[in-house]
């Protein structure tokens, strides 16, 4: 049976209002009588607050209130571990620059802005810990004294097989150290919103959020209010990429509304957004990989250290993920992984596209390409010998569930790039002539895989309500899908509406997806882990099937409305388990997406600059619900990966941020993107996914950096093991190689 709507590139559900500029983002909301709030941010990455003097600010005409820690009913929050103060009070510590001392509320934005300059804060600076490797050592200054005598938040260990035996079997061993940096999410819409008390007396927040129902729990805890006394509304979100999974403005808006009982608007400018919100975790990664002469992996030994910054955020779940993916999408019989995440006084680090699968992807793919070089084997061929298949035993001892499409992604990308397949052999294409005598060409390959849905025994679930309105003849006139699934822009609502239309057998245009308002929609789980198509899609299909049955009843009774609520649990089909404490064995993830990418670059041998000429990106999404949206995820993922590889440098010195603006933090412009971009959609179905679908949002970033960096090596013979490969870094490496440095 062919699908009518699923698999079609229907127009996005919100596209028309977005191209007209009518779609409202959080900063576009204004309420009658609203006040304006500004935050007094910490001036130190680590210090004790001695004294806060708000009196000069209070004296300014038009200042309505200045909130300090005393105004917060329960002054703590945190998405995973409750270790963050909402506002830091006298005698307490700031642990990074993004800590808040006070919130100034005034009659106008100008007044609030002026008043915040007048708040006087005295600090006692404390030693700053800015390298997690130093922070791990006994005796390092403690960031969270209340949490024991170490800055180490978590240590994950995996012991598979016999590592000694594995290395004894190896003919070649590659041992290297890699470093991936902080990354700013750089969503185009800075944090903003309005807090107010709604007509039912509920503390209500309008803001961009990735998991509004979890925000509610945190806000209700902070305000010591029952859950039904708080509410969050999520309008259009101007990008998120993981960066809105934690609260950076939602709780502050709630606090303002709670304290002053009037609508309060708050908008961060770009500098506030960069300085004071979370980043991608830097990972320090030590890899030792062994393989036989004929290219079979025998063992890996890995140490991962991640910089959690001043507060935990999701550093532990990110670490869990990183460890489980540390060996890459390969069969490795013997493995040892030790992974740590550590508090420092750097920027808080959190979810960002890939959630811990991105950083090790750089290291394991660099290892594979170095191994290929050491063995004198083509990098595609080496991978083909080791890639996972259905039922392969993964790093954590579990068999891979059906639908492993990684080999197909690599095959398509490699053939697309001009590789020739001759039996088991793969032969690299001719790269053509460089565009200038001082330029060299190179090509690089990388793979990656990423979980879909929450992992390690967490009960991932999505609840949905499907409502049908029937016309006179009993046909479905309209279907409304209600669920708390934020659409940060990737098109979740469009894909879910397509799935609903398909399952109901109605036209896509008849389906509406409700605005995310926690007072109306049930908890769909976060918009993260590439999970909504799979999790919420599964929930919607089942709800729609039930709605179709109920419609038959309605046709008999003459009822014109049908309503069904359904909650889908990932574990009902694919149960996951947490790490075993001793050996780390587990069945970590529900489902997986797979990807392979190939980069053709030119490197300027005199300046070290890299230009990406051509890029091929193959992603196995199981089933493309909307192929153009899948291509959009590929383009966006590669953009982020290219920034990771070449242009983006978030610079901190002793916990202080040096790249504070878009003029200093350089995300790729259109001119930086590969001239030619060729996406491939691979569809190896996951039998448990809706129409076979998996997920796509995150994995498209994983192989980009290692593919580009390996292409640079192919071009000029140097390996850049710490990102990004700026022109200067490549130049120094080339000089070193030439024996001049």
């Amino acid at each position: 049976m062919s699908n009518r709507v699923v698999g079609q590139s229907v127009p996005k559900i919100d596209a028309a209002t977005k191209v007209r500029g009518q779609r409202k983002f959080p900063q576009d909301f204004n309420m009658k009588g609203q006040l304006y709030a500004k935050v007094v941010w910490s001036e130190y990455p680590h210090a004790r607050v001695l004294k806060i003097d708000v009196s000069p600010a209070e004296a300014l005409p038009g200042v309505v209130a200045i909130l300090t820690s005393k105004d917060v009913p329960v002054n703590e929050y945190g998405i995973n571990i409750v270790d963050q103060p909402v506002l830091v009070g006298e005698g307490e510590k700031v642990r990074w620059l993004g800590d808040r001392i006070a919130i100034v509320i005034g009659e106008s934005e100008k007044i609030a802005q002026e008043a915040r300059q007048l708040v006087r804060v005295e600090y006692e600076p404390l030693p700053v810990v800015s390298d997690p490797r130093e922070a791990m050592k006994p005796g390092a200054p403690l960031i969270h004294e209340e949490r024991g005598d170490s800055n180490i938040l978590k240590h994950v260990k995996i012991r598979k097989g016999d590592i000694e035996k594995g290395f004894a079997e190896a003919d070649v061993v590659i041992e290297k150290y890699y470093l991936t940096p902080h990354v700013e999410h750089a969503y185009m819409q800075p944090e903003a919103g309005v807090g107010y008390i709604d007509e039912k007396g509920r503390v209500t927040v309008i803001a961009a959020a990735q998991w509004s129902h979890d925000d509610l729990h945190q806000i209700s805890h902070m305000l010591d209010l029952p859950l039904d006394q708080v509410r969050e509304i999520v309008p259009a979100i101007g990008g998120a990429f993981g960066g809105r999974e934690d609260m950076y403005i939602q709780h502050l808006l709630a606090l303002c509304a709670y304290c002053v009982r009037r609508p309060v608007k708050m908008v961060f400018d770009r500098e506030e957004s960069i300085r004071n919100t979370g980043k991608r975790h830097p990972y320090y990664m030590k890899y030792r990989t062994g393989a036989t002469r004929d290219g079979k992996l025998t063992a890996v030994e890995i140490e991962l250290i991640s910089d959690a910054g001043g507060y935990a955020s999701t550093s532990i779940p990110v670490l869990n993920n990183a460890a489980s993916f540390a060996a890459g999408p390969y069969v490795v019989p013997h493995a040892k992984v030790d992974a740590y995440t550590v508090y420092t006084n750097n920027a808080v680090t959190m979810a960002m596209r890939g959630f811990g699968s991105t950083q090790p992807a750089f290291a394991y793919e660099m290892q594979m390409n170095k191994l290929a070089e050491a063995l004198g084997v083509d990098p595609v061929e080496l991978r083909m010998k080791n890639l996972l298949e259905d039922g392969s035993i993964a790093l954590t001892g579990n068999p891979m569930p059906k639908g492993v499409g990684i080999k197909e992604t690599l095959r398509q990308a490699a053939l697309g790039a001009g590789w020739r397949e001759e039996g088991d052999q793969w032969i690299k294409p001719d790269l053509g002539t460089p565009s200038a005598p001082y330029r060299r060409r190179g090509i690089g390959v990388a793979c990656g895989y990423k979980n879909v849905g929450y992992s390690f025994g967490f009960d991932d679930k999505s609840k949905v309500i499907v409502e049908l309105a029937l016309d006179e003849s009993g046909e479905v006139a309209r279907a409304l899908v209600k669920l708390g699934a934020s659409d940060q822009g990737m098109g979740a609502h469009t894909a879910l509406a397509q799935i609903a239309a398909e399952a109901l057998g109605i036209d896509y245009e008849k389906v509406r997806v409700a605005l995310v308002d926690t007072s109306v929609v049930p908890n769909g789980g976060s918009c993260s882990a590439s999970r909504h198509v799979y999790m919420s899609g599964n929930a919607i299909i089942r709800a729609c099937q039930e709605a179709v049955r109920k419609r038959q009843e309605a046709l008999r009774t003459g009822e014109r409305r049908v309503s069904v609520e359904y909650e889908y649990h990932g574990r009902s089909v694919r149960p996951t388990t947490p790490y075993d404490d001793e050996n780390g064995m587990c069945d970590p993830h529900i489902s997986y997406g797979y990807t392979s990418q190939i980069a053709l670059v030119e490197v300027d041998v005199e300046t070290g600059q890299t230009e990406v000429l051509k890029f091929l990106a193959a992603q196995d999404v199981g089933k493309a619900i909307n192929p153009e949206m899948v291509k959009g995820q590929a383009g966006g993922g590669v953009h982020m990966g290219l920034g990771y590889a070449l242009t983006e440098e978030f610079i901190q010195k002793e916990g202080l941020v040096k790249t504070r603006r878009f003029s200093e933090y350089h995300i790729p412009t259109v001119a930086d993107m590969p001239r030619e971009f060729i996406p491939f959609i691979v569809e190896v179905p996951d039998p448990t996914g809706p129409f076979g679908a998996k997920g796509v949002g995150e994995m498209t970033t994983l192989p980009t950096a290692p593919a580009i960096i390996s292409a640079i090596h192919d071009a000029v013979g140097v390996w850049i093991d710490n990102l990004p490969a700026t022109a200067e870094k490549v130049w120094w490496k080339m000089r070193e190689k030439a024996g001049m440095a």
Partner: protein
Amino acid sequence: MPTLKMILNGQEVFVDVEAGDLLADVLRDKLGLIGTKISCGEGECGACAVLVDGRAVDSCLYPALKAQGREVTTIEGLGQDNRLDPIQQAFIDKTAPQCGYCIPGMVISAKALLDENPHPTRQEIEEGISGNLCRCTGYYQIIEAIELAAERLAEKGGPK
């Protein structure tokens, strides 16, 4: 308080402004035209782009009074009646908007480009939107949308 008079999206408007107001703030806060977005606040992203006498400018860096007597076009001024401008339609057809926050600025830059150069090469399209940042798309579908709009406009006999 000075009065700014401009032809805004084809209509003459009068609005009282402070001497130090920037055009973006006047459009958004005083005139309720929220389609003009503010993202970087320093002319580094193009989200706030509007047309002044047909040229794209970053309204977050543009003193409001500079628009005195000028023709200003914001995203809300594109298209006619309820019909979308062909550029807007092409953006929909090519799945160009993701989060959509950069899109009004992108459409404005595309409009400025195609009005001046109805048959741009791909390179010229890239130059035309090189002052507009997008974090979601990788720009490819935006480029395709502008190519499609140019094609369709050519069939209809040029822009406007």
